C-alpha cells in the first residue's frame, strides 16, 4: 500500500462497488434534498409526494433512519402547506399527523438534533390551527419543544426561522407577535449569512424562506422598499422560488401600485 496510486484505485473501486450496490448514503441524501427543493420550487404535489416517498424508503432501508425520518417529516410538512393552500383541511390533517409521527420517531432515534424539535413544534402549531380546541393541550407542548430546540442549538438558522414563523402565528400575550417574529427572522437571516455547510447530508433549506417571511412582515407594515429588498434577496438565493416569484412579489407590486 505504499504506492499512493493503488490507494486511490482501491478507493475508487470501493466507490464503484457502492454504485454497483446502488447507493452511497451521502449521495442518496443529497439526491433527496435536491428532489425536495425542486418540488418546493415547482410546488407540484406529485413531486412533493415523490420526495416524501423517497425519504420514507430511505428510512425503511435503515439509511441514517433518524435523518430519513426528519426529511420525511419535512416533506410531509410541505405537503400540509400545499393542501392548506388548496383549502383541503382533510388532507392537511392526514399529513400533519404523519409528519408529527415521523419527527417523534426521529427524536426517539436521535434526541440531540435541534431541528427535529423545532419542526415538530411548528407542526403542533399547524395542528392547533386545524383544530383550535387542541390548543389547550398542544400549545404548551409546542412551546416546550421550541425551547428545547433553542437550548440545543441557539444559533441554528432553521430553528430561528421556525421560531419566527411560530411567533408570527402566536398571540403577543403568549410570547409571540409580529415584532417578535421580525426579531427572530432577522437573527435567522444573519445566521444563514454566516452558516457554512459542514455535512452535505444535513438540512440546508430555509435561507430564501427567511427572507420571504421578513419581506412579508415588512409588506404588512407597508415598508415596501424593505419588503422588495428581501424578496429580491430570496430570488437571488433561489431564482426558482415559486412562493416569492408567483405570489408574494406580485402581491407587493399590487400594493405598491394601489399606494400610488
Amino acid at each position: 500500500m505504499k504506492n499512493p496510486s493503488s490507494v486511490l484505485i482501491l478507493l475508487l473501486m470501493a466507490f464503484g462497488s457502492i454504485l454497483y450496490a446502488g447507493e452511497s448514503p451521502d449521495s442518496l441524501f443529497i439526491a433527496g434534498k435536491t428532489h425536495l427543493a425542486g418540488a418546493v420550487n415547482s410546488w407540484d404535489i406529485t413531486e412533493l409526494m415523490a420526495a416524501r416517498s423517497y425519504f420514507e424508503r430511505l428510512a425503511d432501508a435503515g439509511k441514517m433512519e433518524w435523518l430519513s425520518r426528519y426529511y420525511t417529516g419535512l416533506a410531509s410538512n410541505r405537503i400540509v402547506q400545499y393542501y392548506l393552500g388548496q383549502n383541503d383541511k382533510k388532507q392537511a390533517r392526514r399529513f400533519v399527523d404523519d409528519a408529527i409521527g415521523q419527527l417523534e420517531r426521529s427524536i426517539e432515534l436521535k434526541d440531540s438534533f435541534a431541528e427535529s424539535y423545532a419542526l415538530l413544534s411548528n407542526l403542533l402549531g399547524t395542528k392547533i390551527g386545524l383544530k383550535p380546541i387542541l390548543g389547550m393541550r398542544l400549545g404548551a407542548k409546542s412551546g416546550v419543544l421550541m425551547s428545547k430546540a433553542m437550548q440545543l442549538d441557539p444559533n441554528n438558522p432553521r430553528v430561528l426561522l421556525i421560531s419566527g414563523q411560530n411567533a408570527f402565528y402566536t398571540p403577543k400575550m403568549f410570547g409571540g407577535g409580529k415584532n417578535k417574529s421580525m426579531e427572530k427572522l432577522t437573527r435567522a437571516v444573519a445566521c444563514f449569512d454566516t452558516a457554512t455547510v459542514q455535512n452535505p447530508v444535513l438540512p440546508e433549506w430555509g435561507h430564501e424562506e427567511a427572507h420571504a417571511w421578513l419581506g412579508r412582515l415588512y409588506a404588512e407594515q407597508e415598508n415596501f422598499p424593505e419588503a422588495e429588498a428581501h424578496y429580491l434577496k430570496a430570488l437571488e438565493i433561489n431564482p426558482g422560488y415559486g412562493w416569492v416569484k408567483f405570489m408574494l412579489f406580485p402581491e407587493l407590486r399590487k400594493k405598491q401600485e394601489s399606494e400610488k
Partner: protein
Amino acid sequence: MNRYIHCTIAALFITVYAYGFAQNKPGFHISGSVMDTKGRPLAYANVFIAQTLQGSMTKESGEFSFVCTGTGDLTLICTYIGYRKHTRTLKSRPGSSISVTIVMDTQDITAKPVTVYASSFSAADEKGVTLTSMDVVRTPGTAADLFWAVKTLPGMQQVDEGAGLFVRGGDVSETAVFLDGALIIHPYKYESPTGGYFGTFNPFLLKGTYFSSGGFSARYGHALSGVLSMESRDIPGRKTIGIGIGLAAESAALEIPAKNGKLGFSFSGNISNTKMLFELNRCTKTFSRYPASFDVNFNTVYKPGPNTKIKLFMFRQDDKIGVEVDDPDYSTQFYGNGSNQLFNLQAVTLAAKHILIKANAAVSTYANDSRAGVLDITTKDKLLQARASAEYQPNADFCLRIGAELLGMRTDIAGMVPLTREDYDPAAPCMKIDTDYASDRTAGFIETEYLTPFGFSLVPGLRIEHESISGQTSADPRISAAFPLSGSLSVTAAWGVYHQPPRPEYFDPYIGNPGLGLQKSSHIIGGLAYTRDETIFRIECYYKKYSSLLLEDPSVNYTNDGHGYASGIDLFAKHRMGRFSAWASYSYLHTRRKWMDLRELASPYFDITHNATGVITVDLPRNLSAGCSFRYASGKPYTPGPGMYNTERVPPYAKADITLSWIHSFLGSDMTIVYAAVSNALNRINIFDYKYSADFSRRAPVKSSFGRSFYFGFQVNI
C-alpha cells in the same frame, strides 16, 4: 502526476463498468394497482422493495410499475397514510414480470370500526367528536361535571337539579356506568334516590366517553335503559402541574411521563367545600352541614411493548352533607356520609396480528351513612369483578368479539328504617334491619360487526347473564345496523332485549321477596344521521317495552308484575361556524308504568314530556370565550291526593346559564384559565315536587337550591 491521471481514468472506467453492469442486469418487472377495501384507487401510495430504494409511487389511477434488480425472495411494501402498512413476499425471477393488486386496510386494529350505532354518542378525542372534556368544561351550567353535560344530550330527562341520568323514560338505576370496563355501582357524589348531585369522576381524568341512550351492544349488560362508558387517560405527553382554585373547590394535579413514554403517572386531588358558594349566593335550602367532598386519584400506565398496555386506576372519594328535609308534617335534617373506592387493573394487548385481548379486574367499595328523623341506616357495598374479551378483526369489514364477566356483589345494611317509604318523621313507625346479601353474576357475550358488500353495516350480538339469588338466566339478542344513503347521510336502526336484576336487598325475605326474577326491557330504534364537516344532525324515534318490573305488593312486599312502555322522538343538531359553536337537543317522551308504588299504569315521576337544551359558545378576541345555555323541561308529575297517581304536574323547568373564560399565560410557559359563571341567570326558582302531609291537606314545594348565582375561579397548568 501523469500516473495519477491514468489511475483515475482506470478507476472511473471500472466504476462506470460496474455501474453499467448493474443497470444492464435483466430486471424483475413489478406492476399493479393499490386500492382501499371499497375498491377505490389510492393515488400517491408508496410501493417499494424492503431495505432498498427500488420502488414507485402510484398514479391517480392507483397503478404503479417499476423494475427491481434483486433476486430470490423479496418483500414488497406498500404504505399509504392512514392505512396499515402492507407487506407481501414475491419470488424475483430476473427477466420476468408480475402484476399484483394491493388492498390497503385502515390503520389500526384497535381503531373503532366505521359502524354508526343507533343512539350512541362517542367522545373519543380523535373520532366523530360529539362531547369532549373541553365541551364538558365549556358548556354553561354543567359545573364542569360530565354527567350534567351528558344531560344536555337528547333522550335525557331533567327530573331534578342533580346529575342523575334518566334515559328515555327509564329510572336512574337503569343506566349502567363503566370506567375502563369496570362497572361502577355508585357513580354519584352526595348520593340520593334520584342519583346524586354530581358525577364522581372529574372529566379531566378521562380520555374518552361513550354514551348510549338505547339499543346498545351485547358488550354491555346490567342495564335496562342506557350506558355511560368512560375511559381514563393514557400516558401523559409531558410533565404537567395543575392547580385550580374556585369558589367551592380546590384541586391539584401532577402528570409525569417516564421511560421514554413507556410509563406514566397521573395524580389528582380535589377538595370541595360549598359553604362559601351557598352563603354568597343565598341558597333556598337550609344546610346544617354544607356539602363537602374530597377525592384523590392515582393512575399508572405502563407500555412494556408497542402492542401492550397495562393500566392501574385507583380512586377514593368521600362526601358529606346535612340538609333540611322539605315536609309539611315534620321538621328534620338529613345527614349523609358517603365513601367510594375503586381499584381497577386493566390490560390490553395485541396478542396476534389480528387479535386484541382486553382484561380487567376491579374491586370497588362503597359505604354510606344516612340519617333523617327515624331513618338511621348504614349501607356497605363491595363489588369484585373480572372481565376478559377477545376481538378478532382480520380486515376493516369484519370484527368478532367474544367475552366473559364475573361479578360478585356483597351488600350489608344495618339500622332503622321507616315502615312507610320516605316518611322520615321522628315519630313515624320504624323497623330494625341488620342483614347482608350476596349476589353473583356471570355473563358472556358474542358480537360481530360486519360491513356488507352492499355498503351497510350490521352488528348482531347475543348476551347471556346469570344471577345467583334469583337463579335466573337470560339470553338477550341484539342487533343494530347503519345504512349509508350518501357520504354524510345514513339511516340507523337497532333492536335488542335487556335484563337487569333488582338490587340484592329486594330479595330480602322480610322487606323484599326471595322469589323475584330479572326485570326486562326491549328497545326498537330507528333514526337518520347527517354528519358533514362541522355539522351533525340526528333524529331518532324509539319504543321501549318494560316487563317483569318490581311492583309493591301488600302481602309479599314486591312482585315482578310491573310493566310499562316508553316512546318518543329525540333530535340533536350541532354546528360550528367560525368563532361560533352551537348545539341543541330536544326530546319528546310518552311513558306509562305500573311499577313500585304505582298500582296502575300511570306516569312515573320521571315522565318529563318535553326536554330541550340549547347551547352557544363563542371564541372572542383576546382569548376570551363566552357561552350561554338554556334548558326547558315540562313539569314533573306529582300525586295530589290518595289514589291520584302522578296526575298533576309541577310548573315547567327553565334555566339559563352564562359562562365567560379567559386564557392567559402570565409566565410564558403556563396556561392559566380564569373563569366566571352566572347560573340561573333568569333568577327563576324551579319546583321539582310537592311533599304532602299524610292526609294531603298541606304541601311543601321542593325547590331548586339557588336563584341567580355566581361562581368563579382559575386553573393554572405549568
